[in-house]
């Protein structure tokens, strides 16, 4: 229809190196502000929808989302602050080489950027296209991450030892950090923890540093080619994907088919309902049962905790990582790394 490239572009933030900020800034995507006015915003999670704003204009339509989840037995998470719980646990297991701090199923190499997104300390504000100088918050994130890096080698050794042995991993690892589908994993780990540790599972998420809000990551998102000759049809197609009820059959979920959380409110609630009545995937002796009412209620209420959402920008994330790696892994002073980060972010934004 456009004659030059596709009319609708679909992205996956976990499996591509797309730079959503630069792509939107290049003028190749259609500004969807007019289309958004026709949308019944109450039918969708508004904070998630807003993640599609770049430089003050809506260029992307978020289609699904996720949060970085941390699974542990209830006794490992003290109070509400996950950051502190992890730091305390890291100290506790410091001298025990048989224990690891955490497994990390991130599927992202830009750890620093990821934790800056979660903690609300991003230096790049894509929504306004501005640089945010938040040294204190970034330092706090970096200091936390440095502890994780310090424990990583030991954690990896334990992780390798119990590779494909969930029971072993659960008893030797304090936390399981997952970036795969929250909906799939809550039910999966609930069964797994009960079966292998005889303890209740607790799911936690990293909150923002300045409040208890949670930042969600947009996983699938779509946009319209600025050169399209049929905007209406392209928009209609995008909307149909937003409302699609395709991701509710969790019974056959395998790792390759991780279903992420829909942006449509009713779609989300239907997913949770299905989780509480369906049996999960089976493998070996494992049979994942339906989600408990308690965890179901937690999931129903979960969207209320989300105060912000971002489309992960792993391209920029790698710039952040390059700048902060000397601090995280080589002992270079934080100030030096932070100055480099500001200089590069400035370059990134102004070029």
């Amino acid at each position, binding site marked *: 229809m456009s004659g030059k490239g596709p009319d609708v572009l679909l992205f996956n933030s976990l499996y591509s190196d797309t730079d959503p900020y*630069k792509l939107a800034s290049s003028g190749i995507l259609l500004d969807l502000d007019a289309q958004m006015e026709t949308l019944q915003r109450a039918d969708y999670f508004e904070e998630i929808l807003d993640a599609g704003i770049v430089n003050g204009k809506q260029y992307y339509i978020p289609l699904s989302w996720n949060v970085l989840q941390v699974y542990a037995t209830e006794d490992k998470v003290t109070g509400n602050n996950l950051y502190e719980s992890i730091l305390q646990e890291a100290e506790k297991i410091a001298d025990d080489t048989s224990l690891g701090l955490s497994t990390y199923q991130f599927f992202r190499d830009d750890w620093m950027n990821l934790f800056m997104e979660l903690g609300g300390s991003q230096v790049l504000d894509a929504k306004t296209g501005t640089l945010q100088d938040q040294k204190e918050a970034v330092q706090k994130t970096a200091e936390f991450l440095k502890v994780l890096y310090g424990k990583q080698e030991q954690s990896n050794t334990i992780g390798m030892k119990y590779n494909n042995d969930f029971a072993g991993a659960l008893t030797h690892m304090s936390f399981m950090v997952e970036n795969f589908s929250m909906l799939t994993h809550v039910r999966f780990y609930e069964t797994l923890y009960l079966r292998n540790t005889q303890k209740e599972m607790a799911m936690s998420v990293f909150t923002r540093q300045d409040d208890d809000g949670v930042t969600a990551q947009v996983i699938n998102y779509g946009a319209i080619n600025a050169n399209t000759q049929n905007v209406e049809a392209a928009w209609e197609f995008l909307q149909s994907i937003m409302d699609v009820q395709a991701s509710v059959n969790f019974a056959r979920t395998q790792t390759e088919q991780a279903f992420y959380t829909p942006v449509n409110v009713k779609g989300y609630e239907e997913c949770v309902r299905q989780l509480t009545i369906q049996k999960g995937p089976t493998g070996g002796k494992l049979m994942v049962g339906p989600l408990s009412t308690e965890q179901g209620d937690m999931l129903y209420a979960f969207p209320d905790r989300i105060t912000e959402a971002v489309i992960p920008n792993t391209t920029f994330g790698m710039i952040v990582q390059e700048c902060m790696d000397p601090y995280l892994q080589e002992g270079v002073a934080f100030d030096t790394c932070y100055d480099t980060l500001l200089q590069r972010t400035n370059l990134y934004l102004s070029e």
Partner: protein
Amino acid sequence: MNKGRDKGELQVKREMKKYLFLLPNVIGMLLFYLLSMGYCFLYAFSSKAGRFSFGGLKNYISLFQSATFFMAFTNTYILMGICIVSLFLLTIVLEYVLDSSALHLMLLMLLSVPMLLPPNLITSYAVDLQLSPRIVLVFIFIWKYLGFHVFLLKMAEMGMHTEWMDAALLDHASKWQMFLYIRLPYLFPYIRFLLIFDGVCFFRLFRESYLLYGQYPSDEVYTMIHFFFNNFQNMNYQRLAAAAVVTLVPFMVWNIFLWKAGDQYEMV
């Protein structure tokens, strides 16, 4: 009469053959150089990527308002100037010091090897030096091309008439005088070629810069190639085209100057 006509026909055939042999070059030049350059000029006036949509001087205005573009532009030509001047001073020194003996030529051949080596060999070493990025890049540039430059000049010098030097020796000319008044003017066309070649080589230095300092290096070594590369990756083709046109201007002026300037000094 017939003989004259045959001769004429033969000449036409010869002329045609000449052009026929030139044709592949002309087609190649058109396809890979002139047409793509023309398209680039045109694209610089597009307001968006993908479909051409006339946007006037929008891209140029936006470029000239960008501090980052100016920084990249000035960095490029400053760094290029430092690299080429340093390389040439060293080339001239080595050209003066070394003679055409087998040992020296062997040494020059060894010095030329870095040009063929993969860039990561030197970059890993350069990182350990912890020097200013600009110094590191100048060092890499010299390391890569010095041997080749002197080697090429030495090879060219071997074609020089030995009688000129003999005559100069008879007139008691010093080594420096012979170098200044005979060897250097003789080598001028080759030097001119190398100066043009160096401009191209400088842009190839991006590989090492990228390996060392990534997509966004420190301000002092952020050059036009970074600007091009990043805008290409971000599909901002119209901005990239406008930047390429602006960058081309001094480069072309320099090349035309070199092409025209030294004709009167040529001895070959």
